[in-house]
């Protein structure tokens, strides 16, 4: 066979292989969304979205999951904000003041390891600390634990994004007589859309976490009513509803999952819109 034919064959083979993978990935995603949506819509009602549970909710009685919706939003938003105030400065510092240093290298390794630790372990860790300082299961404890869970995700994702900033940016900024702190500000501007992507990933991870919340945030049928009071969350609500033997309550679990998925979808769309606006000035 001549070389031209061989190359054509190669091209065709790999194009089809990639199409096949694409279809596979798309199919899996569609099936998951389909199951959540079709089952979730059965359990979904105006009542479920707008009311906290009544006493007999988990036996099939009235009420809704508003407590868990609000609880999850508080938990995930609080943790994302807190984590960003820790992770973003650390990453920028690492790139501006200590690039290629042993410190940066060690920190990356530590974050990678933290990323792999199951969140139930963070829950147990958070619980141990809570016991030691006498803190009950609460919104605050939940936020602090979730912050630990998402710091590695936020920091490492943002780290990779900052690493992609053009090297010349450093030179031209410093050439204008900037201090390194002023360069850090310019670097932040350049990577702002990327930071938003990282925040989004972290938010999605935080709002979907059940294991760490079980011990630290607790669960309650009440609406969130204070930093030091227990708080419900959607993943834990899904867990409780699925564990009941009643099909009507299990349907509500899927409705809760649908709400969770929709929240992530809305936040993603918002982030994309903001990113397009922020990305106007970015140097490529």
């Amino acid at each position, binding site marked *: 066979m001549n070389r031209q034919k061989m190359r054509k064959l190669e091209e065709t083979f790999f194009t089809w292989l990639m199409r096949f993978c694409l279809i596979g990935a798309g199919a899996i995603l569609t099936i998951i969304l389909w199951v959540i949506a079709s089952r979730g819509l059965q359990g979904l009602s105006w009542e479920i979205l707008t009311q906290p549970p009544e006493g007999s909710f988990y036996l099939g009685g009235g009420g809704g999951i508003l407590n868990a919706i609000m609880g999850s939003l508080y938990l995930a938003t609080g943790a994302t904000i807190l984590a960003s105030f820790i992770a973003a400065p650390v990453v920028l510092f690492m790139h501006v003041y200590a*690039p*290629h240093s042993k410190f940066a290298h060690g920190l990356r390794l530590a974050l990678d390891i933290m990323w792999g630790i199951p969140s139930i372990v963070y829950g147990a860790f958070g619980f141990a600390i809570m016991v030691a300082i006498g803190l009950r299961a609460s919104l605050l404890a939940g936020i602090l634990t979730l912050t630990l869970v998402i710091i590695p995700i936020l920091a490492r994702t943002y780290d990779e994004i900052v690493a992609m900033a*053009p090297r*010349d940016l450093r030179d031209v900024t*410093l*050439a*204008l*007589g900037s201090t390194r702190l002023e360069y850090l500000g*310019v670097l932040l501007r350049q990577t702002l859309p990327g930071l938003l992507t990282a925040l989004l990933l972290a938010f999605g991870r935080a709002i979907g976490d059940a294991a760490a919340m079980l011990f630290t945030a607790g669960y309650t049928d009440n609406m969130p009513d204070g930093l030091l009071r227990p708080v419900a969350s959607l993943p834990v609500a899904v867990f409780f509803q699925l564990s009941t033997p009643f099909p009507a309550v299990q349907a509500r679990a899927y409705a809760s999952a649908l709400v969770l998925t929709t929240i992530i979808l809305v936040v993603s769309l918002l982030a994309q819109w903001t990113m397009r606006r922020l990305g106007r000035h970015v140097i*490529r």
Partner: protein
Amino acid sequence: MRSLSVRNLNVWYNGQPALKNVSIDFPSGQITAIIGPSGCGKSTLLKSLNRLQETNDQTKVNGQVLLDGANIYDARMDVTEVRTRIGLLAQKPFPLPMSIYDNVAYGPRIHGLAKGNLPEKVQTHLQAVGLWDEVQDRLKAPAVGLSVGQQQRLCLARTLAVEPEILLCDESTASLDPISARGVEELLRSLRGHYTVVMVTHDIDQAKRLADHVVFMWLGELVEHAPAAQFFNAPSHPLTQQYLAREIG
């Protein structure tokens, strides 16, 4: 007028020498052009003159650069002040990730040079580089949206807005069309007498048009340094003669 001199400057990249024992006095208030083949160390020399070279951590610099007699590599020297007083226009145009206006305003803002007249200042510098007419109705637009030639002139305006005492230009007209290039040449010529200018160029004719003094470099070494007339009419070193005759380089 500030004087700038180099004494026994050596620069290495990963242990490989890029500048070998360069010594030179740049005449105050005049334009010095550095010429030489690609890779001979022109950009490296320029970046060593305002301590930008050391932002590359594979590099080692050794020797003295004297600004008004004070060594800029001295431990007591404030590196941001050195870079403020000695402005460098890089070889590749590279806007900051902000609007056209903010690019020019950046230097005056961080150095506190704009006392209530920032818009006028921005306008003056944009006019100086011949960019004002093209961008005056889109000052808030991203600087990345400009063409390469416009970006290069924006970068020049940005450097001038810092109000340096000495201006280093690395092939500043290489990415410009002939008309904008002439504009920038005019600007550089108008700076003569007010600024000490050190420029790198590949264009021997441009050096003839602009330079008061010419430096010829070859493989990291300074081969010849002379007033322009003498340099072009009676070069003394055989390598210079061959380079000017376009036999090498």
